[in-house]
């Protein structure tokens, strides 16, 4: 009898995870790869595309990769001191700084790009003209919070006693950092770098704000892809997308491999030199905090200065906000149901499939969203469904990893003894999940939901790649800026900012 019950529970469990896996594979993963099999623009049949690389594509790819590289280096140099402070400081200042670092995250990237471009450009400081360096300034502003978040979490995981032990053995603070802390959180650092790199590589909305009108046609790879698509050159758009998907997956594979194998050389130590840098600590911190304030925080909110009090496109703005929020809510809601299931599967390594799906989720996350949006849109349009649903499916695809990743991590960190204790006290598995596991992972589910919601809300590239008729709010902002209606664009950005602030506030409170 008992054996029979066990068996039927196993079947139920298997059925549940099968649905979770099918949801991911059929509705998210395979559609993202669909583009690689849509080689024949004329027909809807499957065939491998001919991949080619024109000079124009090469220069777009070169721009994208060099921008992403410089941005990551800037982020890491100026991000580590701030991340360090957040992770190790014990005072109240930490709470405020934490909040300030999170602030730019609630500004949708298109608005943030618009704002940063205004700040550095002719309307503000007049220090940077639109183009290559403006794109770097814009990308730095929106990737910096991601880097600081991830690095400070990684530093916090390193037991502070290792540093103290190193100090008692005679290491100066810098030596202790270089030989002990850095090797212990290097995988966190690499992952943070990868995240920022791929976010920079894939960002479209913010980039469009920073490329000058004249240089629009040799912009970054995602922008170039959109140009091809808008000009009807579908085979070039597919070519560039496939290259972007392939390189981002390759990059992910390399970084994941290096994260656990790369050794930080510590053989050589220069005690007197490293000790003498102790006096520089203060300057280093001041410079990092100034960078954060001047290059990230202030530019992010500079647009508020331009907000028009009497926008001429009010009806369009309201319509776009309704579209944006409906789609973000649908995507977040569906992902909560199926994404948390996937997170449990990864976190608990069910059927030994954890690492595989972890990697596949990462692969979706690092894919440039324009390529992803193009692929998903092509896939769903085959079924002749309404464009609104196509757009929703695209947003489910891009925001899915942002729920799975944090929830899986917190499930992995959960002590399984707690669940066993509940079982021994007489709770059935579902009751254990409802009364023990779920309450413990709720904070990470909330965090994941906020991230997914914000990603959907601020996505420009994938939206442009998927739909022409439905203008989400970031798309509208891009349009308004292109016709030089800065006041209206600032107004739309401000409305989006206020509404997302309240949405997050409500989510956090629960």
């Amino acid at each position, binding site marked *: 009898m008992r054996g029979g019950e066990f068996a039927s529970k196993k079947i139920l469990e298997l059925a549940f995870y099968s649905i979770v896996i099918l949801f991911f594979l059929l509705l998210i993963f395979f559609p993202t790869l669909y583009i690689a099999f849509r080689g024949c623009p004329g027909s809807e049949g499957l065939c491998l595309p001919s991949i080619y690389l024109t000079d124009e594509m090469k220069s777009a790819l070169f721009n994208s990769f060099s921008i992403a590289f410089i941005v990551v280096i800037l982020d890491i140099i100026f991000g580590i001191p701030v991340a360090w402070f957040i992770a190790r400081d014990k005072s109240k200042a930490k709470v405020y700084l934490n909040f300030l670092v999170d602030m730019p995250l609630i500004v949708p990237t298109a608005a943030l790009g618009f704002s940063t471009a205004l700040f550095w450009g002719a309307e503000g400081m007049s220090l940077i003209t639109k183009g290559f360096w403006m794109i770097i300034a814009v990308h730095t502003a929106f990737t910096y919070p991601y880097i600081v978040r991830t690095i400070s979490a990684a530093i916090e995981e390193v037991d502070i006693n290792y540093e103290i*032990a190193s100090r008692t053995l005679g290491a100066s603070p810098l030596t202790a950092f270089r030989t002990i802390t850095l090797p212990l959180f290097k995988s966190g650092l690499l992952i943070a770098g990868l995240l920022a790199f791929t976010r920079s590589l894939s960002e479209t909305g913010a980039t469009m704000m920073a490329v000058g009108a004249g240089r629009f046609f040799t912009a970054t790879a995602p922008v170039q892809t959109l140009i091809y698509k808008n000009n009807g050159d579908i085979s070039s758009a597919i070519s560039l997308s496939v290259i972007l998907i392939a390189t981002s997956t390759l990059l992910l594979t390399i970084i994941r491999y290096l994260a656990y194998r790369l050794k930080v050389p510590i053989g050589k130590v220069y005690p007197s030199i490293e000790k003498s840098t102790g006096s520089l600590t203060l300057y280093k911190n001041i410079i990092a905090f100034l960078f954060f304030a001047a290059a990230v925080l202030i530019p992010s909110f500079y647009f508020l200065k331009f907000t028009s009090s009497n926008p001429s496109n009010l009806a369009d703005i309201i319509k776009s906000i309704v579209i944006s929020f409906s789609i973000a809510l649908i995507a977040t809601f569906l992902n909560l149901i199926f994404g948390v299931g996937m997170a449990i599967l990864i976190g608990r390594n069910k059927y030994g499939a954890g690492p595989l799906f972890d990697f596949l989720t990462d692969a979706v996350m690092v894919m440039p969203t324009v390529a992803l949006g193009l692929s998903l849109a092509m896939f769903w349009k085959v079924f002749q469904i309404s464009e609104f649903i196509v757009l929703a499916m695209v947003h489910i695809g891009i925001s899915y990893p942002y729920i799975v990743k944090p929830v899986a991590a917190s499930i992995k960190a959960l002590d399984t003894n707690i669940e066993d204790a509940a079982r021994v006290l007489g709770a059935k598995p579902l009751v254990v999940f409802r009364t023990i596991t779920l309450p413990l992972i709720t904070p990470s589910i909330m965090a994941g939901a906020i991230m997914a919601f914000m990603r959907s809300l601020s996505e420009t590239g994938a939206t442009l790649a998927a739909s022409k008729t439905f203008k989400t709010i970031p798309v509208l902002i891009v349009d308004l800026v292109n016709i030089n209606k800065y006041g209206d664009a600032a107004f739309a950005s401000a409305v989006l900012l206020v509404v997302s602030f309240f949405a997050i506030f409500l989510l956090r409170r629960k």
Partner: protein
Amino acid sequence: MPNIRVVNVSKFFGNIKAIENINLEIRDGEYVVLLGPSGCGKTTLLKIIAGIWEPTGGKVYIDDNDVTNLPPEERNIGFVFQNYALFPHLNVFDNTIYGPVVRGKDAEESRRNAREILHLVRLAARHDAYPSELSGGMQQRLAVARALTTGSSLLFLDEPLSALDAKIGAELRGEMRRMIKDLKLTAVHVTHNQEEAMEVADKIVVMRRGRIEQVGSPEEIYSSPANLFVAHFLGDANFMEASISDGGRGSKMKLLNGEIDMPKTEPGAYVAVVRPEKIEIGHSGFEGTVRNFRFLGGISYTEVEIGNEVVISRFPSGKSYRLGEKVCIFFRLEDVKLFKYPAEGLKEALRVD
């Protein structure tokens, strides 16, 4: 020659006073144990001496130099952490040689030195293993080895044995003391385990609630505790309420269900402290009933109920007693330590938290 002086040291965490006005002197070559219940401030004091924490007030001197504001890397010390803090990404040998490397010492000489120390702690064969591959006892020995490579003659140990199984811990503490004495080091060791303290220390510093209660050799502290708390925390003791009154040429002490004549003492309420091994069971003395008897191997243990108090006797095994058996207990007056009955009550005076 290291000689540590702690002068008026205090440490506050917000409103909480972890330690207050501590004065302590540690001589060259001494093995000193800071002993006390958890939260008494012993680890705080150790970390302040080592330079890991800065005191809120007061001064720390090593070799008569004021080191109060010196960071730990400039104090030239060895420190063994409670959970060892072995660097997980370095193997046994690289952990051991870390100190000399970051101090820029001569590579060949420090390698030789590290190998010698690993021999000393019986880890030479495991030089390429990672900390996670070692047993608890090996990890502990590696932590000591790593602390020794600094070449310092000052070694600080923060609960170095608390993470080990009782049996292994008991074995290692003898070994550790021998090694520290052989190397002529000055050691400051923190523990809450009084047996461990008795076994390793030349000098014990008993702490409670951020203050020092008594400093002395294990024998001194055991045989003449400064107060009720020290008597209670170090070894077992019977605490009996007593009252002393004038009685002609001497004094009379009411105790349990009897009265004893004693030399002239100030009258009043007292607590009489007698160690269990000083209480004998026989045919004369205070009459009582056996409430519990346990055979513990080499020694046996009997609880005798007298009125509403219970007296514990411990003696070399041999005799046994039945529950409910009527017996008499007695002890010599010179084995009784008298303390004024505490104003805060006996329970409060003995509380360990």
